């Protein structure tokens, strides 16, 4: 178990923990906005930690950059989509 492996195990376990937190938050939180908050924050952090943990396992800079690109796109997509979904939540609340 080299240092890189230990680092990978630590980061991936932390990432998995945040996915667990996101899923539990999605199920347990009382209303839509808090669920959205829990989901978005925890999952992006989980994905970021998993990508961080996978970096030393990847041979070659290009593959590492591709992993970071995946995480970057997921971040940008999640941020913008969250704003859109909040507009729908607000609309549903006003309609209700």
């Amino acid at each position, binding site marked *: 178990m080299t240092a890189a*492996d230990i680092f*990978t*195990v630590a980061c*991936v*376990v932390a*990432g*998995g923990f945040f*996915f*667990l937190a*996101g*899923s*539990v938050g*999605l*199920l347990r939180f009382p209303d*839509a906005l808090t*669920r*959205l908050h829990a*989901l*978005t924050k925890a*999952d*992006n952090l*989980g*994905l970021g930690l*998993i*990508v961080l943990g*996978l970096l030393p*396992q*990847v041979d070659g800079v290009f*593959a590492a950059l*591709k*992993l970071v*690109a*995946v995480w970057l*796109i*997921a971040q940008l*997509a*999640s941020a*913008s*989509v969250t704003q*859109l*979904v909040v*507009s*729908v*939540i607000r*609309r*549903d609340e006003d309609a209700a």
Partner: protein
Amino acid sequence: MAAFLTASAAFVMAMVALGLLRVLRGPGRADRVMAVQLLGTGGIAALLLGGVGGGLWAAVDFALVLALLAAFAAVAFVDGARRAGRPDP
């Protein structure tokens, strides 16, 4: 190490399956979209873990595509929600 990565990919998918319960229970339609969003993000994480763990580099490209499609799915939902009642252009 490969076994650990594949096992953590399975764990992430289990979390996603747990989160998908919200699709059944979710009172509002926005909750259901959130669960689909979780499926997208969790799917990306599981793909990356499984890809790097299994040595299958195509999975990383597939995760890239899934990241885009997850965003489009949510945007399509929002567009449909805003267009409720009015005919499509």
